[in-house]
């Protein structure tokens, strides 16, 4: 029998929210699983928008000298595509995985700070909405003194300085209007969200591990979450300060990045890439983690070189802070710096290689079950390998001066971030689908999705290598017919639409399987880690009783021993253990205390966009509204105990 004690509805200052279903239960939730799901849906929504922007870009580039978009519209689209995909799609989709899985993988009941977790989600939502409100309120135009033949229109009134916002082009003189302010402040708000979740995850991993879950017994996905959180915590402050400078330059007449007042545009590049390169690993390491979970499960073998993979991940994260200037090889840096950063970039290939080889070692000699998550993980290795190798050609500085700012680079990082990160993410979405929804996805549709995406992806980004080497520069609104680039551009555009088709297949699969899929058992994959010891879908209290972990891949060792040849043999008692686990997971035998829902995270978060608008429009009333919301949220938060119960206790 369930014996969850209902939280007492004693209010502190405001009435405590109490909904357990319906929209209020989502708005006030502090449950890491609900927050994870919301992160996932929001990020997927932005992924669709970013994809739409990509399709618009590809239509424009399908013909030389095309006039489907104006220059202003094209520039706004590529800026928003990059910004959206990085900050609003891939990062939050990784956050969705962190949120949902991290506590389950370390045997915790929630993250260290559940309300902070809700706060970072709502800040992300408000930040995304703020950034996208530029399409309604933002303005953009020609540089000071320049002329336009036509109005920029709503599509062109979005940020247009590139996701990298190079100064001084992104400054007020050359990007007038408010659009780039929306960009700078929007990223600032999104950065706060990521920073808060980074604190939360670091603390959670250090301090919330269940008994026996030593560091070297943690699943690799948890390790990669750990690495990503450190990367976030140490790189976001840098971009936050740089964005402060940008906002001051644009709104208050300072000249941090403007030559005319003694500032330095190259300083922006250094600060931006000091953040921007770790950011690349922020995007890819979660996928490394996912793949490192999926491959052993479907190979029915332990991860090859667990320690090496973990240390390689941290090696990548660490070296990732020392390679930023390889984004600036053509910029104003000295040959000594070029050589140094070229070498450090080569060095980072070594731990990356170690990972790939260890993954191969994992599947070698296994018994591979080629279902959808496994296909995506295998596809990930193949595609990421290409991205990694083209990355090595970038570390050859002289060659990079030919390749940088061309489609070769576009091809490279899409192989890393799409063929890498996104393939890994899809692998994870299929892999944990049964755990989240308690239903099985449709295997045939999943495979169709994989193959369509594989073909579409390679058609889209493969030819870009050649386009780049043949001289197609990035961020190019039009290209001349004489450059003879049209054929491969048409192929690329066709590929992009095939990707779009594959996404539709994915959505159909998701919606129908979630509603009508077969009921999922709690351990459908014969998996290895402890999140599979609890019922599907995960009950609200996660673990009925804190699990005690005795080894790496604890769940697997509960089920299997090894014969003298080293082959896995199912334990005699395994079936009974599984039955017990299921019974116990559904019927906790002890009193369970869960953090109570709260209004204050969303209230606090809602203050930030007002402060953003206040800076853009230099409006005191808006600043007051924002500050009041922050104060109400902060005050309510500070005076509200995490759990009703705890509040009662302290009275006694």
């Amino acid at each position: 029998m369930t014996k969850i004690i209902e939280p007492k509805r004693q209010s502190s200052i405001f009435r405590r929210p109490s909904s357990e279903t319906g929209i209020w239960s989502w708005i006030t939730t502090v449950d890491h699983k609900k927050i994870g799901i919301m992160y996932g849906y929001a990020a997927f929504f932005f992924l669709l928008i970013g994809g739409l922007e990509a399709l618009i870009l590809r239509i424009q580039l399908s013909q030389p000298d095309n006039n489907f978009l104006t220059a202003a519209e094209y520039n706004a689209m590529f800026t928003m595509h990059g910004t959206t995909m990085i900050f609003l799609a891939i990062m939050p989709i990784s956050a969705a995985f962190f949120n949902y899985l991290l506590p389950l993988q370390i045997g915790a009941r929630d993250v260290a700070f559940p309300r902070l977790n809700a706060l970072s989600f709502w800040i992300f939502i408000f930040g995304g909405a703020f950034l996208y409100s530029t399409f309604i309120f933002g303005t953009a135009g020609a540089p000071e003194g320049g002329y336009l033949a036509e109005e920029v229109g709503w599509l062109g009134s979005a940020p247009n300085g590139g996701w990298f916002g190079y100064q001084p082009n992104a400054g007020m003189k050359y990007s007038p209007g408010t659009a780039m302010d929306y960009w700078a402040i929007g990223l600032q708000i999104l950065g706060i969200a990521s920073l808060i979740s980074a604190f939360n995850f670091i603390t959670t991993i250090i301090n919330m591990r269940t008994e026996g879950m030593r560091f070297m017994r943690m699943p690799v996905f948890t390790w990669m979450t750990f690495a990503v959180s450190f990367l976030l915590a140490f790189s976001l402050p840098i971009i936050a300060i740089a964005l402060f400078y940008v906002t001051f330059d644009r709104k208050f007449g300072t000249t941090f990045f403007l030559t005319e007042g003694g500032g330095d545009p190259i300083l922006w590049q250094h600060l931006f890439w000091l953040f921007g390169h770790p950011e690349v690993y922020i995007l890819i390491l979660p996928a490394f983690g996912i793949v490192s979970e999926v491959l052993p499960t479907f190979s029915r073998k332990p991860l090859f070189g667990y320690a090496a993979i973990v240390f390689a991940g941290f090696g990548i994260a660490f070296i990732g802070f020392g390679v930023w200037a390889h984004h600036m090889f053509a910029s104003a840096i000295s040959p000594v710096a070029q050589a140094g950063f070229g070498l450090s970039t080569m060095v980072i290939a070594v731990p990356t290689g170690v990972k790939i080889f260890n993954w191969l070692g994992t599947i070698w000699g296994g018994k591979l079950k080629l279902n959808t998550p496994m296909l995506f993980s295998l596809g990930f290795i193949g595609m990421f390998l290409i991205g990694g190798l083209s990355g090595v050609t970038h570390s050859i500085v002289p060659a990079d001066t030919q390749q940088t700012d061309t489609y070769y680079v576009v091809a490279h990082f899409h192989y890393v971030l799409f063929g890498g990160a996104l393939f890994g993410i899809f692998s994870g979405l299929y892999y944990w689908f049964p755990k989240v929804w308690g239903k099985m996805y449709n295997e045939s549709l999943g495979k169709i999705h994989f193959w369509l995406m594989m073909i579409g992806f390679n058609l889209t980004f493969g030819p870009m290598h050649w386009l780049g080497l043949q001289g197609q520069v990035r961020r190019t609104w039009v290209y001349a017919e004489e450059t003879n680039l049209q054929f491969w551009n048409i192929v690329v555009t066709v590929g992009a639409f095939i990707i779009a088709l594959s996404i539709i297949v994915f959505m159909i699969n998701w919606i129908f399987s979630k509603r009508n899929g077969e009921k999922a058992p709690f351990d459908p994959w014969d998996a290895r880690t402890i999140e599979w010891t609890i019922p599907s879908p995960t009950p609200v209290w996660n673990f009925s009783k804190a699990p005690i972990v005795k080894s790496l891949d604890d769940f697997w060792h509960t089920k299997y021993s090894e014969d003298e040849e080293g082959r896995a043999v199912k334990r005699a008692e395994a079936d009974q253990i599984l039955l017990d686990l299921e019974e116990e997971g559904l019927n906790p035998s002890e009193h369970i205390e869960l953090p109570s829902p709260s209004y204050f995270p969303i209230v606090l978060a809602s203050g930030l966009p007002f402060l953003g608008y206040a800076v853009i429009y230099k409006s005191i009333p808006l600043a007051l509204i924002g500050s009041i919301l922050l104060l109400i949220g902060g005050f309510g938060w500070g005076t509200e105990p995490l759990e009703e119960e705890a509040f009662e206790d302290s009275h006694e």
Partner: protein
Amino acid sequence: MITLYMVSALSLIIVDNINMLVKNIIKLKNLRFLALIFLSACIENAPLDSLSPEGPYARSIDELFWLTFWIAVVIFVIVQGALLLSIFVFKEKPDSPEPKQIHGNTKLEILWTIIPVIILAVIAVPTVRTIFDLANEPEDALKIEVIGHQWWFEYRYPDYGITTANILVIPADRPIRLEMWSNDVLHNYWVPKLNGKRYLVPGQTTYLNLHADSPDEFWAQCGEYCGLSHSKMRGRVLSLSENDFQLWVKDQQQDAVKLEDNSLAAEGQQVYLNAGCTQCHVIDGVWDVQGDRIAPNLTHFAIRNVFAGAALYNNRENLSKWLANPAEIKPGTFMPNLELTEAEINALIAYLGTLK
């Protein structure tokens, strides 16, 4: 399933590569064959092709690229091959035994850490050497200043007192030292067939060496996103024989002659002087702009075969389109629509045609 994997675009490429590799293993000297296989059908003449160097700098980069490329291909074939092989061999079959639980192999892991290190060290040596070779100022190089503007390149020859735009004229088979800066935002100067890219930064000077083997015309393009008309910030490099170059220098050093007759061109000169062009455009011998020269010098406009940041060929049709409304062609341009009548445009075109 596996068969499907094989027919995926990726696998096709790999298999092709392997076949070609085997067939052409003896012809490895012709390092460009792979690119040719892919591209011959579609790209015969790409003027911005970075894989067909026409000078020593670009060639040293090209060699380095192909060295890396081939190493990468070998690694690619081995790793991707191992991946596909393991999928083939180890996919689940009805009679597959439970796998051996191998947790790792320290020797193997050390091996595949060391091998990449060695390979990278092999690439690193020529890389570092080439970096410094490319950066060194060549002896007796011709100095030319390149100034980036939104959205065109200005060239100045301090040795000869010449200022021109859009087309960089250089002597063939002689090293050129470009000293570059920007007048506004960041730009990135790129002549793929002669060298890699280098930024133009406001307030700082950067350097780039060029060297063309023989007389030819090359395309240039701004690489760094520099605002609305970034994609139309193009250029040409014209390398001339030493003799032709000296002739060109002589010609450039001549001022334009002020027209005093009643021709259409003289009418055009009046339009130039009165309609507002003189706010920004210099024609030596006719008009000198006070203050910032933010627009191309037009003294020898007629001998340049492109204009408007090399986005347009210099012909009648393009000129009349451009003069009617510049922003229509280059969004954001600083050249206003002067509301010229058709007659004025015709006169201006006639006048520009005389500026040789």
